[in-house]
Each structure stands twice: as C-alpha cells, then as structure tokens.
C-alpha cells in the first residue's frame, strides 16, 4: 500500500463523478491539442510548399484560387494565359527565375504538371530511381504517386481531363511513360506527375481538334464567322496578327479563337508562371505591372497565405476559446466534486489523521486526486486528439493527397504542465479544508 494505490482506490470509489470529470477535461484537451497539431501541420505545409516562390502569374480571377491551384495543387486553376505573353513578361529584369506550369489533367487524382526541369529544384527533389523526363510523354513522378498508384519505371498510363479521379474525359490516345521517381520530399512534389509542357499541349491539341469537329456541326455559325474549319492555317494568320499589334479588339478576338485552337508555338497556352524576383523591388513593381498592363493576374503567395491564415485564425481562435471554457468548466467540476466528496469523506479523513496520518498526507491525498483526474484527462485527451488527427488526415489524404499526420507538438508538453496546475488549483481549496478538519468533533459525531 502506498499513496498511489490509495489514490487509485479513492478515484475508483466514485466512478461516475471521476469519469465525468475525466471526460470533461479530456474533451477540452483533445480539442486544443488537435488544433495545435493541425494548425502547425497546415502552416508547415503551406510554408514549405511556397519554396521561395515570390509571385504566381496566371489568368484573372481569385488570387487565392490562383495560389491554391498553382502552388498547392488543391483548387482548380483560374484559367489559362498566353504562353507568348508570359514569355514577354519573363524578360523583365526583376525576374530571376520563371517556371511555366501547364495544368489540366490528372492520373488517379494525381495532377499531371507540364513544366520545365527546374521545377523539382524548388522542392529539392532528388531522383530515387530513373531520370527526369527528356522527350514528350515521358514523365517523372512523385514519391506518393509511385506508392499509391503503384507506378514503376517503364510503366505507362493515360491521363484524364480534370483533377478528379474517374471523372472527366480520358486521353486514351496518348500514353505517358514513367522515366523517373523522386525521393520523398514531404512537399507537394510527392503528389505530382511532372512532364514537359509540350506533352500537355499535344494531348490537348488532339483533344481540341476533336472538339473542333463537334463545333463544326453544332456551332456552325460561330466557326464560320471566326475560324476556318481546320485549325492550322487559321492559327497561322492569327499568330501574324498577334505579332503585329496588340490592339484591344484584336486581343479579344484572339482570346476567343484560341480557346479552340491553341496550336502554333506563339499561340500556345499555359496555366501559370511561378516567379522568383531578382531583388525585393520586384514585389513593389511586378504585381502592379502584371495586373494593370496585361490580361494576366499576379498573386503573391505570402499575401494570400496570410489572408488565408487570418481567415482560418478567426475560426481556430473561436474553437480554442470554446475548448478553454470546457477546461475551465471541468476544473470547476473537479473542484465541486472534491468539495462534495469531502462532506462524505470527512470521517475518513479524520480517521486517517487519528491513525497517525499527518495533515500533509491528508493534503497530498486530496491534491493527488485532483491532479490524477487532470492527468488522466490530459492523456485521454491527447489520445482522442490523435484519433481525430488520424481521421482528418485520412480524409485530406484521400481528397487532396495531403497528409496531415503529425504526432508531436511542443505545445502538448507545455499543456501537460498547464493541466497539472489546473488539477492542483481545483484541488487546493478542498485539500486545505480537509487538512483543517476538526478530527475530534468529526469522530465523536
């Protein structure tokens, strides 16, 4: 027999109120710990994947959407931009590096990204096997893609239009071949299929021609007005026009046409450009330049992510407050139930003293009960938060290919001390009362 076994027995002696108190405390801890874990992980994911990208240039639309699509590959892109216009922009001396991305297809939910070979360097992607893509329809795939889709070097696959697995039009005509697999980086690179831009163009060229045929039949008027029945000659003329001038009217017509036939090098489209500045001046002038004088929009990841944080922050803050209240209520509940049980237990406490137990022993026995309930509640809460993490991570993994799995947060450690202090404080007054019990009076009652 020792103070721990006594403590265990006194907690077990009133199972209902002990369980209630433990669960109340655990709920508060679980919510707070879960928030710590997820917000830290989400912030890590968001920050790591920015990878030094200063600016994303894409089609006009929501800047946040552009960032989410261009950097995190979560949302749908805002649209496409002219490759030529994008190239013009990259000549700006404030741009140190510009990486083009052509999006649109996916394989089993993993996005196929047409880009150049500098893209993997953003995420320090090292090849695990094989090599980077060299020619059209060669692809280098991320770690998670290889693992989840079961692709090996030399395997071939066909993409589908859109980003949702088993939905959208299949591009059966062209097969990609896996030439390399990246090491795990813990970034968005793990869940991407990289290829060259030309492959993406070729697939959609075919795709669009196919659609053009349909258009001839169904939207005859439109086609004859703006285009010739077959893409090539027509596109050439437009390319010429495009070279000669940037009249607004022309640009409009141009835009309209090219949705149907982006064929020649000058009229190709890409989805967006990832840009790094040569110096901080870029941040001041480039976004304004792009937004005001081109058909494109520039979005800064840092700004948009901050905006996202502040949106998220309100929700997180509210939930944290609620969890805090739950913990305070549970502290009161522990306090009240200890105080109540003192009434029933005053004979026992007096008895313990009359049998030679000192006041300090009595005090520590009551305090220990409060601390134990807080500690058990804390541990249970920690377990519950991990369980919640597992469920949410499973959800994000299947829907977004992002894993939120994250098991340790330094705040949990601080929170252990906070829990113990809460347990101690809620038991303090009852313990002092127990210590001051008039044993003679109690025992002769």
């Amino acid at each position, binding site marked *: 027999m020792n103070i721990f076994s006594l403590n265990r027995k006194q907690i077990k002696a009133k199972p209902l109120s002990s369980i209630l108190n433990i669960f109340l405390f655990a709920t508060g801890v679980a919510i707070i710990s879960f928030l710590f874990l997820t917000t830290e992980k989400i912030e890590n994911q968001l920050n790591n994947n920015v990878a030094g990208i200063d600016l994303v240039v894409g089609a006009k639309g929501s800047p946040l959407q552009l960032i989410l699509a261009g950097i995190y590959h979560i949302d749908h892109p805002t649209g496409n931009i002219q490759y030529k216009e994008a190239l013009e922009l990259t000549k700006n001396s404030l741009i140190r590096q510009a990486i083009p991305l052509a999006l649109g297809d996916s394989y089993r939910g993993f996005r196929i990204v047409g880009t150049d070979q500098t893209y993997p360097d953003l995420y320090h992607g090292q090849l695990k096997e094989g090599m980077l893509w060299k020619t059209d329809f060669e692809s280098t795939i991320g770690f998670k893609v290889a693992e989840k889709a079961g692709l090996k070097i030399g395997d071939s696959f066909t993409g589908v239009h859109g980003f949702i697995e088993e939905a959208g039009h299949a591009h059966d005509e062209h097969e990609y071949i896996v030439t390399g697999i990246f090491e795990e980086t813990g970034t968005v690179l793990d869940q991407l299929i990289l290829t060259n831009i030309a492959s993406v163009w070729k697939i959609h060229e075919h795709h669009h021609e196919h659609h053009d045929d349909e258009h001839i039949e169904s939207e005859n008027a439109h086609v004859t007005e703006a285009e010739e029945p077959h893409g090539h000659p027509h596109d050439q003329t437009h390319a010429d026009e495009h070279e000669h001038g940037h009249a607004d009217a022309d640009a409009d017509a141009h835009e309209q046409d090219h949705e149907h036939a982006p064929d020649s090098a000058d009229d190709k489209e890409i989805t967006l450009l990832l840009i790094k500045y040569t110096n901080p001046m870029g941040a001041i002038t480039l976004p304004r330049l792009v937004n005001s004088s081109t058909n494109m929009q520039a979005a800064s990841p840092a700004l948009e992510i901050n905006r996202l944080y502040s949106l998220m922050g309100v929700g997180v803050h509210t939930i944290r407050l609620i969890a805090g209240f739950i913990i305070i209520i549970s502290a009161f509940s522990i306090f009240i139930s200890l105080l109540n049980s003192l009434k029933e237990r005053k004979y026992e406490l*007096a*008895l313990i003293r009359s*049998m030679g137990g*000192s006041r300090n022993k009595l005090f520590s026995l009551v305090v220990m009960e409060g601390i134990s309930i807080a500690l058990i509640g804390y541990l249970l809460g920690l377990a519950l938060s991990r369980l919640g993490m597992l469920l949410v991570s499973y959800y994000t993994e299947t829907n977004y290919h992002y894993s939120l799995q994250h098991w340790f947060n330094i705040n949990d450690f601080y929170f252990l001390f906070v829990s113990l202090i809460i347990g101690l404080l809620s038991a303090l007054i009852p313990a002092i009362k127990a210590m001051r019990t008039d044993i003679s009076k109690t*025992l002769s009652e």
Partner: protein
Amino acid sequence: MNNKALITRNLIFSYNRLVAFTFPDIDCAPGNHCIIMGPSGCGKTTFLHLIAGLLRPNSGEITVQGTDTIRLKNEEADRFRGKNIGIIYQKPHFIQWLTAFENLQIARYLNNLTTENEDINHLLRSLNLEDKAKSKPSQMSQGELQRLSIARAVINKPALILADEPTSSLDDKNCEEALDLLKRQAEDLQASLVIATHDKRLLDHFPNRIFL
C-alpha cells in the same frame, strides 16, 4: 513515574467560555487496565480525545509512555498517536472504499510501518474475520465491524488502547465476547486498556475505576 503507561494531572478543557470540564487524575501502569464511568454527556469522549491528543487541554499534563504529549507539535502528535495509541471509536468509522484487510493495512502504512500480509491475516483470524478480509465495511455486520475496530486498534502494537463505549450497543453475550477479545488482545501486547463507558456490566471486570 516514567514507567507508567498513562498519567494525567489536573486536566481542564472547555469547548467554550461557559462550560469547562475538569477531569480526575489517572495513573495506569503498563499492562493494567482502567475504566472511566459516567453518564452520557459528562465528557467521557472528551477525556479520551484529550488522552489521544485529538484535543488539546486548556491546562494540565498528560504523559503517555513517558512522553509529555501536550508538548508535541501537531505533526509529532499525529505520529505519536499512530504508533502508541490504538483507538476504538463509539461508532465504527472505517474508510469505505477500502476492504477490511486494507483498512488494517492503511493503519500500518500511515505510520510508515511495513507489514507482512501474514500478520494481518493472523490478526483477522484471531478475531474471526478471516473470511471478511476482502469485504468492504458496508458489507459487514455490526459485530464484525466492532471486531474490525479492535483489530485496527491493535495492529500497530500500541502501548495504550482507548475504547469509547465499546459494548453499549451489544447484548450481554456479545458484550462478554467483545470484552474478552479486547482484554486478550491487550494482554497479548502487554498494553494498557482505558475504556470510557456508561455500561455498568463492565464495572466488575475492572478494579481500577474512575468516575466522572
């Protein structure tokens, strides 16, 4: 004087300013027993609590086993009582969430004494409680609780055993038995037994009588 188990001198105690109790002196040699007789409300329990150190007298002297217990500090008094004085209360107070066995164990533990389980089992057997070792106090009869009280009073092998009305709720047969047990346990330990009671049946058994 130091070889006496219990000596009290000129004890005065008051719960409030209006009423003060004065108590007769007691001299009790080791192994000798004495009985404190008096009607209800005359301060028998108070007297026992003073001797046990649960209450502090306004004035007077108490010496148990040569130790002046009034001079002991709270903490020391608790420890001294735990080791040297066994108490049997009028009502059987037990820790409800512990078994009979554990209620004896805790009396040892609180005084930092280790016990062999066999010692406790032996004691339970001698009081005819061995099959109740794992029972909670709420599952035991009045007589069993009475015997468990005796067991707890002697578990730490005290020099002095104080009993407050140990027989008043028992019939003649059980009274006889309980008294027998008490005396036997006290003799085994060579301890002094001090009984406070209004039960006249006990008078014949104790030549050393104090009347309040």
